[in-house]
Structures are given as C-alpha cells and as structure tokens.
C-alpha cells in the first residue's frame, strides 16, 4: 500500500473531490501561488486554476462569510484558515451564519461548507498560536467537528466532510502534517461520526483524538510492557456528533477510562465524554474517570514550560494506573 504523509493525504482528498465535483473550490490565505502555508494545497492552483483555488487578503471574517454566502446558493466551498487561531476573527460567520442558517430559515438553506486548517499547539509558538478549539466549536448545534489523527483518517474524513451538506469544522493537527501512514489505492471515505478503536485492550479505555492519539498509543505500549495493563485506545475522530456507542462499548468492557485531549480542561471535550459515561455506563465503572488535558494556562514560550503544559505519555500512564487502582 502506498505511504503518504498526513499533509499529502489531505492534498489527495482535496484534489479528488475537486475533480469529482465542479462546485467544490478552495479559498484562503496563501492557498494558491504560495502552495499553502503548510503545503496542503500544493499543486492545486496548477491543476485547477485561479477560478477554483483562490488566494485571499488577510481578512478571515470576510472570506469566511463569502464562503458561507457561496454555500447558501449551492456551491461547496472549502475555506482554509492558515491556522485555527486566526479563525477567531471569523467566528461570527462560522457560528452566527453557517451553523444557524438551516435552522433559522426553517430548513430552506443548507450550508455545505468545510472550514479547515491546523489547530493545536506546535513547538514554541507562544500563547496566540498554540491552542485547541475543539470544545468551543463542538458546543455549537449545527456544526460538525472532525479532528483526524492519521493520514488514512485525514483523507477519508476530509472527503466525507466535503460531501456533507452541513458546515464541517475540520481540525488538522499542526504537528501531524509530516506523519506518514498507509493509504489504499483508489476511492474510499471515512464516515463522519464514527470513532475508531486504534488498539484493543481489556483493562482501561483511553479516549483521545488528533495529536493525542499518538500519545495514547505510546502510553498503551508502555502500560502493556512495563505495567501489566492492556489499554484500549479509542480515537473519537469526530467530536460532534460524538460516537457514544463505540465509546460506551469500550468502557463497558474495561470498566475504566482515561480521556486525553490537548485543549484546556474547563468545559473541555473530556467533560462531555465523562458526562456520557456517567449517565449511560455508571454501573459499569470501577473507578472515577480520569482526564489528562493541556494545562489550564495560556501556552508559554519556554520549551520546558511548554512541554509541561502539554498532555504527556507519563501523565496518561499515571492516569491509567490511578484508574486501574495500581497506585
């Protein structure tokens, strides 16, 4: 099977969907001539021309709204935010326009749009360039929120997101672009709203998504090798709609759960997952659900402080041991 980077997997998804559907176009800062700030759109301008690959001024609110307006009349825009940090400038169009249009028009006007770009922390970019907005965006009814961890999922989920008739928030891991993985030849999609068990296990469930999937998998290997615990790694892949079925099936099997996310703890994705578990699997739990999150601070610049602010393999191992009453 061919091996591709996460970046190129996304590139292939965009290319294939633009070849398949003439209503799909890509708009954003540096997507064309520059070939993408993170090179996700490499070659697309050359293949599709500047009618369908549109460089914008630095005006997130404006071009996000132009995308929503184009979707209102039936086009299928893919709007790239250079990073999700800058999307805060456009949040009015994402929340007040895109997410609510179908409802407040009484079902008349669907918004088939994808807002995509890198999120989460990279390395030493400081407070304004290092943050995970999953929980903010997943709070809004009308939006779907996707955060793939692997090249395979990134390609399959982006294709599904582009074909979806709703606004889809597509959060790419800024640190994942160079990761490689196997991609099957030919057409495939990964449906939105389905979690994926990345590693089977019996002793504790580790719930994760995006960049924290690698953290969880590494922790699971160490837990098996050094701590005698077999962890099951459940990658949410889609935050909203949340695949509670897969999640609960795992917890009912392991009776213990750790949730890992890069975002801040307060009202985080993990808080929602804990709520689902305590309501639907209360009797199956043998221990309180543990959470490992980013530190509840703006991201510091210093390398050591930054490392301490991110969810670590050691923190996941510690949480799993607590949940399993090993400590």
């Amino acid at each position, binding site marked *: 099977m061919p091996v591709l980077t996460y970046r190129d997997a996304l590139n292939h998804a965009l290319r294939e969907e633009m070849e398949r559907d003439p209503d799909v*176009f890509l708009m954003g800062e540096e997507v064309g001539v520059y070939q993408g700030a993170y090179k996700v759109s490499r070659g697309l301008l050359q293949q599709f021309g500047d*009618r369908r690959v*549109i460089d*914008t*001024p630095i*005006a997130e*609110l*404006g*071009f*996000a*709204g*132009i*995308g*929503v*307006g*184009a*979707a*209102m*009349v*039936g*086009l299928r825009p893919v709007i790239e935010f250079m990073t999700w940090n800058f999307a805060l400038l456009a949040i*009015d*169009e994402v929340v*007040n*326009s895109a997410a609510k*249009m*179908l*409802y*407040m*028009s*009484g*079902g*008349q*006007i*669907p918004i*088939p749009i994808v807002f995509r770009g890198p999120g989460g922390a990279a390395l030493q970019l400081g407070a304004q360039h290092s943050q995970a907005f999953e929980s903010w965006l997943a709070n809004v*009814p*009308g939006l*779907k929120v996707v955060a793939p961890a692997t090249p395979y999922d990134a390609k399959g989920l982006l294709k599904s997101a582009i074909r979806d*008739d*709703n606004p889809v928030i597509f959060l790419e891991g800024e640190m994942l672009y160079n990761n490689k993985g196997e991609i099957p030849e030919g057409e495939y999609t990964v449906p939105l709203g389905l979690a994926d068990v990345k590693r089977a296990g019996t002793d504790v469930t580790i719930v994760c998504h995006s960049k924290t999937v690698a953290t969880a998998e590494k922790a699971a290997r160490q837990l098996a090798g050094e701590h005698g615990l077999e962890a099951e790694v459940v990658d949410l892949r889609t935050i909203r709609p949340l695949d509670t079925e897969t999640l609960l099936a795992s917890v009912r099997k392991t009776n213990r759960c750790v949730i890992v996310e890069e975002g801040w703890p307060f009202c985080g994705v993990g808080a929602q997952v804990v709520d689902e578990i305590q309501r639907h699997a209360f009797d199956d739990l043998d221990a309180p659900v543990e959470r490992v999150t980013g530190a509840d601070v703006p991201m510091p610049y210093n390398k050591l402080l930054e490392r301490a602010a991110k969810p670590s393999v050691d923190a996941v191992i510690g949480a799993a041991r607590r949940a399993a009453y090993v400590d």
Partner: protein
Amino acid sequence: MSAVKDAAPPVGARAKLDASRRALYHDLLRQMLHVRYFEEKAGEAYAQGKIGGFCHLYIGQEAVAVGSLAALRPDDYVFAGYREHAHALVRGTTSRAVMAELFGKATGCSKGKGGSMHLFDAARNFLGGHAIVGSHIPLAAGAAFASKYRGTDQVSVCYFGEAAANIGAFHETLNMAALWRLPGIFICENNRYGMGTALERASVVYDISQRSCSYHMAAETVDGMDVLAMYEATRRAVERARAERLPTLLEARTYRYMGHSMADPIHGHYRTKEELEEQKQRDPIAGLRARLEEDGLLDDAQYAELEKGVHAEVEDAVAFAEQSPEPDPAELYTDVYKA
C-alpha cells in the same frame, strides 16, 4: 441638529413623468402603501403582544426597498439585515407568510423558527434576514462570487444600515468585491441613526458613499425618499454588475419614522420631534402621489383603490397569522442538521 445634508433636491422645474410608465409608477406606489400598512399592522400586533422579541419597522424608508428591488430580476440574490419585512414583501414573499412568521406560526416563511429578524424565502432568492450588524455583507458577496464562478449574470444585492459601514465585515467585503470584480450591489440605507447614535457621532465620514474611494468602487448617493431615483440608480448599478461585473456602493439617504425597534420610543433622547416632523415632509409615498397627480397620472379614486387593495391583503394576512397553528413541538429538533 443634523450636520448631514440630504441628497440635493432637483433644481428648477422637474421633467414630467413618462406617461407610458404609468403602470410601473402605480405598482411602486402600491408596494410602498403595502409595506407601510403592513408595518402599521405589525406595530399594532406587537403592542397587543401577538409579536414577540425585537421588531424593527421600516416606516419612512419604503422607497429604498421598493425602488431598488424593482430593478432586479427574479433570479438575482437579495440579502438584508434585521429591518427586512419590506424586502421580503417586495421580493414577493406573501403578506401571509411574512405576518405568520412575525407571529411565530408554522405557516411563516421560516416555519416560525426565524422571527421578524430572520425572514427567508429561498424560492424567491430572498436570502435573509440577518441580525448581526454587517454579518450579511460578506454573505451577499459570496452569492455574487457564485455568479462569477458559474458564469451567470445574476447580481447580488445587500441592504444594510449606515452604522454597518463602520464594521470590519463591510470593509473586508468591499475590498474583495472590488478586487475580484464581483457583481454585488451594496445598498446602504442611511437613516441617520444606528439605534440611538447619530451618524456624526459614530463616523468621521458623513458621506457613506465616499467609503467606496478606498476600494476604487463605483458609488452613488441617492435620495432614499424618492422611489424613482432609487429605481434609476439601482438600474445603473445592475447594468454595471451584469455587463462589467463591477460592484457598486449605493448610499440611500432615508429616514425612519419609528423607534429603532418596537421596544423604543419614537424619538427618545437622541432626536427631536421637530426633526422627525421635518423629515416627514420628505415622505416617499406622499411625494410620489403628489408627482403623479401633478402630471395627471393618478386621481383620488385610483389612489383609494390602491389603498383598498393593500388594506385587504394585509388584514387577510393578520387573520391568517392569528388562525395559523403553532409549530409542532417536534419542530424544535428539526432543521439543525441537513440529513
């Protein structure tokens, strides 16, 4: 009180109206009467507690929507703010569907889920009904972008108040619309007040049309109380958009007679009764009526007939709204996602 000058009135003797366009003039007059009576009845229903929330009436501004929308084709796109009952009605959404929406009924044009500020009629390309000041200006440019993308000659028209000309979305959009040659017509309904803040207290530029200079965009200042001037100026902008794919900023100098919303007093602390009375001398309906009568194109009986027709239509709409069912409780959870 106001340092803002209105568009200059015609100097000297004006040209006689073209008798061959009598039907058009009568239709414009009828539509303005329709909007005004509709808004008066909406105001009454609000006072009776039959309409909830915010309700922003258009009384005084009728010439802007009626004159400009007359210059469009049915397949053009229309976006408006939250003072948009008139734009929906003039676009052809029935009085029944609009009034029922204000009443929150299932038969409303947004199934009772939108309300006064979120009227939609996709079949007529009336695309809302947007209540965050300025947020719909990029949306309208998006529809214009779609016309260009598809190679059609549909234009996209956006209505917003003068207060929206200070918000970032306005500037970002005008820049991109001009840069990309999008067939958009941006109609600023300058009614002098953003809620209770006079234009001079919010903007260092009083002539909103001058904002176009920053974007090398064609612009015109129009007497927004003159329905024929609105019609002609919009026709010029439409021609520019269709033939040359160039956007236009039209500033319509108009005035609202009522408070910002039904929750506000008519003049409040921010304007005087005298100013209001003075502005009413520019009334768009009385103005067109007088011109038509002067040129022998309208008599009292015809005027009474027009009034009678719109009164009957609006009263029927009120009765329809009152008798219509509330939305089914299950509607709460529909239309959140498209299946």
